[in-house]
C-alpha cells in the first residue's frame, strides 16, 4: 500500500467546528442549573443514609445556647445554696475564720498556685492553729509539696 493511502486511512476524520458553531456550543456550557429544591433533596437523602450530619440552624443554635446558660445559672444557684452562698469553685470549708486570722494567715503565693492547679485547696492557713483537725494534715502536706 502506498504511503499516501496509509496516511489517508490512519487520519482522524476532520470535522472542525466553525467559529460560530464553537461559540454556540460553548455558550451552552456557561449555563448552570441550580435548584434549591434539588439541593434540599440531595441533602435530605444523604442525611437519611447517615452520610451527613444536620447542621443546627441559627435559631436552634441560639436556643441551645440560651438553654445551656439557663441550666448553668440554675446549677450555680443550687450549688450556692448548698455551700453557704459561694459558688462551687470557690467553696472552701472555712473553720471559723476571724478577721485577725485572715489578715495574719493570708494565703501565700504557692498556696494560691495549689488552689489554681486544682489540688488541695487553701486549707492550710485556717488550720494552722488547729493541727488536730482531720483536714489539717493533708493541707500541710499540700503546702510542703508546693515548697
Amino acid at each position, binding site marked *: 500500500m502506498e504511503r499516501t493511502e496509509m496516511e489517508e486511512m490512519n487520519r482522524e*476524520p476532520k470535522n472542525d467546528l466553525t467559529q460560530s458553531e464553537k461559540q454556540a456550543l460553548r455558550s*451552552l*456550557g456557561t449555563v*448552570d442549573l*441550580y435548584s434549591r429544591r*434539588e*439541593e434540599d433533596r440531595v*441533602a435530605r437523602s*444523604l442525611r437519611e443514609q447517615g452520610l451527613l450530619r444536620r*447542621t443546627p440552624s441559627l435559631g436552634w443554635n441560639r436556643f441551645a445556647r440560651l438553654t445551656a446558660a439557663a441550666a448553668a445559672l440554675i446549677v450555680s444557684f443550687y450549688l450556692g445554696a448548698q455551700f453557704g452562698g459561694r459558688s462551687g469553685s470557690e467553696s472552701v470549708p472555712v473553720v471559723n475564720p476571724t478577721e485577725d486570722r485572715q489578715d495574719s494567715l493570708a494565703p501565700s503565693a504557692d498556696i494560691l498556685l495549689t488552689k489554681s492547679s486544682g489540688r488541695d485547696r487553701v486549707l492550710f492557713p485556717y488550720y494552722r492553729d488547729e493541727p488536730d483537725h482531720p483536714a489539717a494534715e493533708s493541707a500541710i502536706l499540700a503546702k510542703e509539696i508546693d515548697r
Partner: protein
Amino acid sequence: MAAARNGQASDHELVIHFLANREEKAFRELYRRHGPKLHQLVVRLVGSENGDADDVIQATWTRVVERLPGFRWESSLRTWLTGIALNCTREHRRKAGRGDAPGFNGDALDGIPGKNPSRVNRAIERIDLERAIASLPAGYRDVLVLHDVEGYTHREIGGFLGIESGTSKSQLARARNAMRTRLNGHGANGNGRDEQGTEERSHTI
C-alpha cells in the same frame, strides 16, 4: 487543586472542612459550588423528563460523599466529580435499558427572554442545539458534550469513558456531522440512530 478565590475557601479546604465532621452546611457549600454544573451536564446527557436526571444527580452525590475521603487530588475536584457523574449516567442508562435520545424538555432551559430579537434568536438557537444534542446517540452525545460544550480534552474524555483518545476524536467528528444534519432539518428522528442508522457505537469504535 482549585486555589482560594475571592477570599473563598479552595476546593481542598472545603473538602477537608466537610470531611472533618460531615456537616450539612459544609456539604451544601460544596454542592452550590459544583452542583449546578453537574446538574446541567447530567440533564444534557440523560434528559430532564421522568426524573431521570434527578436520580442520576442523587446517585452521583451519594457516591461523591462516600468516596471523597479517598480522593487523591490528582485531578481537579470538578474533573473528578464529572467522572463520577458520567459513571452514574452510564449505569443509569444500562439499568434503564436505553442509551439513546434522552427526553428533551425545553422548559428545563431558561425561558425565551423578553422582546429583544437577538436574545430571542439566541434562545431559539440554544433550544435547537439542545434538541439536536438530545437526539444524538448516547456515545456521540457524551463526547460532543464533554469536548465541545464542557471543554475537556480528548485525553480527559478517554479517561472518563474508558476509551482511547483516538476513539474520542473520531467519535467527535461523527457527532459533529450528525449534529449538523439535525440542525439542517435532516435526520433528527430522535430514535438515537444517525444518518447511516449506526446505533450507540460509542465505546467500540
